[in-house]
């Protein structure tokens, strides 16, 4: 294994291993940017990992009024799951509890997709018979009476089967502050890339995991090889001067989006340099046996 | 003029002829013994079947309700004429002109419109007179009219009831009497929504059974050849076979005709509580020589149901396709027009099978009549296809492949091998109707019969054979050649000559003055009103 050093940052010759996922996108609009974000944050809360949350979701991009169907501020939200059924279920639960409920909100398809996922066509029953279906061009909308007027919700949104989950960067730093600075820089750069979300808190995850556990009931457990406190007890991946590791996990609408996000993040981490940020960048994989997608760090260098 | 139809296979059950031979026509009549004269014109009928012109005893071809159906459904025949053949009812024969032509093309020369409200008799006769080529007859509806119900309630003498029936038949120029859901339409006007044979009409306390029995007796006593034509209560209702069975039981040895029995052939078995009871009904018919029936076969596709059974049609409004209908509260019956499309789903398949079961399980072709209750079960233009089903079990088997197997399981159709012979077809459509209606001068090729003759080119495929006759003669005149109409002669409307008593006329005059403030003239009309020369043909009563 031949590691490269760029701007003083060591780049492992390894790859992030990622999986095919089902994903969809919706556009949430509201009378103001603030309320569009409130709705979006609410519906993407507790959506860090499919393992415990059923889906992974986050805000892809904010939209200006002239970019939304109804001319109001909005956001595009991406949602990922392992199966179409689960995605459908999560989508309806989350839109129903968090978007329908949010003041002045409206909800539209955010993706054309290969097949439709129910959105308004399932939510409509909340209207108790007073819901109104309207078709404009090729798009169908449902209007549900609510206490501040109407909740407008497109009948369906699109499903993509080309989505990718689990792109990642592992940022190995001298201390916790440096690791966090590197991760923050990486996430900020990735957020500018369309079509991706970083589902963990602030885009960052500290509890990287490995497959399996000594406990039969668990499918994943702590990534001991990267935990500095276990350095003396397990086959550690950490050099002696590495005292903190953080990971950025990326889900993307497409293979290309994940690659682009990782490229942007990598560049930001390298630009930050080893003093203020990460000394070394690696990526998580399972030896290439499990995931369909591999993102080799050396291919993503600036 | 002497005409010879030469060398065809003559099938004439009335005379027992069934073999190759000649048929001679002179001056509009069959001439069985032309001695050794030369014909003025001769038609080669070799390779053809020669029969008398067919008689349809039950087909709604004209009158107020039929015209209302035309009015209701312009889009279903040729209204949007861009591609006239693409509309669901474009083969229906919807105008009077087309009705006459299409019947003649199939070799039918006499057709009975079975439901004329006496109050609208003139309208019916105006329409019938506009149907070219064929002769027509029509049955007057009684049994929901206040006058009759009042007579029965007040225990009027049988003579008075007979006089009233005789007056009605005479003034309406009818060929017989029909009763439709007897008492049901009157009860419906009093907000009754279901009505069975032993239910009573509220304001009169008179049951349907009593009305039917009263009319049956009057018709028989008057010597009107056609027995009372009964449209039972509960048409189309699951379990209605019991109504039909009870009604047949009430015939009590006196002739009675039950119309479109198929619509009563339903039991309540199975998951959908809709099953075939055709076998039970056929058994009763087989055991009751005084009963005749016609089938009212259902065939698939768009049609429109036209019935004077206003109560039943009101109930059927919800199933109208397209969703529009007319319900009419007339004097006496009124009626209802409800468009409907028979599909090969469970219900349609079952109805189709029930009709065929009746055809095949009733043994005596002299007592079962060939109808689709046009247009209720199917337009009469479906007749050729129906002949084929009766004459070929293979055709039935093929047809069943496209139908709902669950429905067919509730019928005996799959086990029936019977195939109608040409002679049986000729009985059912010629000889038997002649007898049933008292039209002694037609339905056969005997000496002196009206020269209504249908010549069909023999074909293995009965649908092709009966769909377009090779030659058709009406009163000796060639009207169809190779399936095309070649002459549009006017036909006549046949009426039975009853002689009403003068006393009843006076009583009726008083009744109409009192109840409507109108003279009886409003409810009668002179012959000239029909607007044709000699519009009527006379049929004698039995003596």
């Amino acid at each position, binding site marked *: 294994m031949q590691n490269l050093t760029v701007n003083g940052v060591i780049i492992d010759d390894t790859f992030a291993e990622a999986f095919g996922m089902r994903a969809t996108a919706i556009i949430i609009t509201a009378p103001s940017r603030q309320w569009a974000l409130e709705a979006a944050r609410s519906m993407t809360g507790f959506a860090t990992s499919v393992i415990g949350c059923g889906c992974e979701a986050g805000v892809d991009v904010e939209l200006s009024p002239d970019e939304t169907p109804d001319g109001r501020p909005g956001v595009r939200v991406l949602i990922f799951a392992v199966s179409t059924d689960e995605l459908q279920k999560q989508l309806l639960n989350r839109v129903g509890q968090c978007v329908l409920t949010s003041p002045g909100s409206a909800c539209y398809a955010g993706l054309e997709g290969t097949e439709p996922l129910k959105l308004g066509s399932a939510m409509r029953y909340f209207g108790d018979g007073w819901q109104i279906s309207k078709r404009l061009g090729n798009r169908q909308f449902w209007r549900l009476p609510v206490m501040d007027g109407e909740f407008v919700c497109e009948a369906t949104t699109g499903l993509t089967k080309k989505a990718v989950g689990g792109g990642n960067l592992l940022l190995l730093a001298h201390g916790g502050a440096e690791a966090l600075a590197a991760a923050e820089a990486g996430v900020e750069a990735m957020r500018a890339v369309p079509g991706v979300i970083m589902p963990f808190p602030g885009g960052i995850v500290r509890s990287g995991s490995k497959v399996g556990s000594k406990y039969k009931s668990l499918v994943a457990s702590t990534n001991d090889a990267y935990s500095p406190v276990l350095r003396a007890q397990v086959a550690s991946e950490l050099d002696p001067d590495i005292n903190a590791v953080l990971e950025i996990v990326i889900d993307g609408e497409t293979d290309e989006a994940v690659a682009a996000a990782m490229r942007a993040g990598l560049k930001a981490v390298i630009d930050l340099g080893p003093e203020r940020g990460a000394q070394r960048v690696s990526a998580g994989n399972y030896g290439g046996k499990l995931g369909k997608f591999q993102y080799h760090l050396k291919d993503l260098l600036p | 003029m002497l005409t010879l139809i030469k060398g065809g296979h003559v099938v004439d059950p009335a005379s027992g002829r069934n073999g190759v031979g000649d048929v001679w026509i002179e001056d509009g009549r069959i001439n069985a013994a032309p001695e050794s004269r030369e014909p003025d014109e001769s038609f080669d009928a070799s390779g053809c079947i020669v029969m008398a012109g067919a008689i349809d005893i039950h087909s709604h071809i*004209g009158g*107020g309700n*039929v*015209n*209302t159906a*035309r*009015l*209701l*459904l*312009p*889009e279903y*025949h*040729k*209204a949007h*004429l861009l591609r*006239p053949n693409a509309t669901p009812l474009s083969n229906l024969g*919807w*105008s*009077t*002109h*087309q009705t006459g*032509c299409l019947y003649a093309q199939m070799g039918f020369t006499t057709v009975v419109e079975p439901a004329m409200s006496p*109050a*609208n008799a*003139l*309208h019916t006769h*105006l*329409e019938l007179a*506009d149907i070219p080529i064929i002769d027509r007859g029509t049955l007057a509806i009684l049994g929901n009219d*206040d006058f009759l119900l009042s007579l029965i309630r007040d225990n009027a003498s049988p003579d008075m009831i007979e006089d009233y029936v005789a007056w009605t038949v005479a003034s309406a120029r009818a060929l017989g009497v029909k009763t439709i859901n007897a008492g049901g339409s009157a009860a*419906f*006007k*009093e*907000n009754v929504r279901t009505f069975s044979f032993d239910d009573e009409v509220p*304001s009169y306390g008179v049951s349907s059974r009593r009305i039917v029995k009263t009319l049956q007796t009057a018709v028989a006593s008057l010597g009107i050849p056609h027995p009372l034509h009964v449209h039972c209560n509960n048409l189309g209702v699951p379990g209605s076979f019991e109504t039909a069975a009870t009604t047949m039981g009430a015939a009590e040895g006196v002739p009675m005709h039950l119309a479109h029995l198929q619509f009563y052939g339903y039991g309540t078995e199975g998951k959908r509580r809709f099953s075939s009871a055709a076998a039970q009904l056929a058994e009763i018919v087989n055991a009751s020589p005084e009963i005749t029936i016609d089938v009212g076969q259902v065939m698939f596709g768009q049609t429109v149901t036209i019935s004077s059974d206003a109560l039943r049609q*009101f109930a059927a409004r919800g199933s109208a396709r397209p969703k*529009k*209908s*007319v*319900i*009419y*509260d*007339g*004097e006496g019956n*009124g009626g209802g*027009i409800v468009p409907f499309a028979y599909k090969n789903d469970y219900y349609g398949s079952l109805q189709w099978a029930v009709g065929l079961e009746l055809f095949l399980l009733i043994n005596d072709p002299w007592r079962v009549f060939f109808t689709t209750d046009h247009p209720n079960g199917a337009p009469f233009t479906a007749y050729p296809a129906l002949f084929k089903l009766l004459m070929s079990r293979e055709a039935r088997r093929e047809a069943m492949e496209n139908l709902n197997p669950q429905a067919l399981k509730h019928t005996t159709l799959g086990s029936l091998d019977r195939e109608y012979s040409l002679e049986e077809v000729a009985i059912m459509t010629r000889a038997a109707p002649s007898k049933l209606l008292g039209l002694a001068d037609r339905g056969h090729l005997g000496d002196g019969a009206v020269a209504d003759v249908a010549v069909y080119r023999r074909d293995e495929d009965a649908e092709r054979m009966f769909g377009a006759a090779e030659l058709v003669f009406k009163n000796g005149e060639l009207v169809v050649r190779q399936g095309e*109409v070649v002459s549009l002669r006017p036909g006549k409307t046949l009426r039975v000559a009853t002689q009403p008593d003068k006393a009843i006329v006076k009583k009726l005059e008083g009744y109409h003055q009192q*109840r*409507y*403030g*109108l003279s009886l003239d*409003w409810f009668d*009309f*002179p012959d*000239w*009103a029909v*607007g044709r020369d000699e519009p009527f043909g006379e049929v004698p009563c039995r003596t």
Partner: protein
Amino acid sequence: MTVAWIGNRDAQVPLAIEHATALLVKSRCPVITLDTDVDATRAALALARRAGAVCDTLSDGVRQETALFTSSGGMFIAPTEAIRRADVVLIVGTLPPSAMEFLQKLAQTEPDLAGGKSRTVFSLASGDLPDEVAKVARVISARDTSVSGAAALLRSMHAVRRTAVSLEGFEELGAALAEARFVAIVCSGHGCDALALEMLQGFVSDLNTSVRASMVLWPASERGWGSALVSTWNAGFPLPVSFQSGVAEHDPRRFRASRLIEEGEADVWLHVGSEPVSPPDGIELIVLADVANPIDRAAVTIATAEHDSVVFSGMAGTFVAKAAEASAPSAASVLSQILEQLPEREVAPC
């Protein structure tokens, strides 16, 4: 005395017929308007078939009534039956003069088949009721609302749904409807357009969920409605019916006679009936009517009279025979003579 005119000049009837025939022969788009008896309608339809003409009525009311049937149907009752059964009568909209005798009968008699109940007449009519009716009728008023609006109010208020305004006097009607044995809504295409009639039919249908109710649809023109019915069985379609393309076609807009005449599409106009007509420029008018003078600007006028004839009667709700004698020829006979003189035309069977 038999009279006919070519223009304003007296002419022998055969000559007038010949002239009329010549006009039809050279016509590209002849229109026949009818308001007449059965035989004349039959003859006119036969003539239209031969001449490739359009047949229509000039009665806008008949057009509305036809549209009610073709577009939705409904529930109807014979007027004579209504007289005997209806204990609640509601008159909606203006009725034509031919209905006045019927309205009087309703007002002056009690139903004999209503289980001993007496009759109450309500009126949502816009005036012109006979005194006998006006005297007894309970007036329901929709104030400034048009008859279509009033019909909508009836239906909506009966179903206890909200309305922007109320019908005055509805309460009494509502109570009567709830207790009714048989409700007769009396109206006509004369006073209600097709949509108002359809609305009233919706009301009738609503009523029938609990009581019995039906509509007496009094024809705006008795003869016009009769002509429409004859056309329906003869051609398969109500008026207007066009034979221009060789087969019968029904289209109330394309073949509306008044439009064809006003827009100059028709070039010859044959009118059979009593309504006054006046031709626009560029159209040859032929009139068969019971007149003593030539019709102004008509190319041909032939005085005809009703002989023994059959006409539609509003009261009977069907056709009735009317015996009559007259010296002038009947319209049917004149039309038949024109037909005989017209050359044969290749016509597809209808």
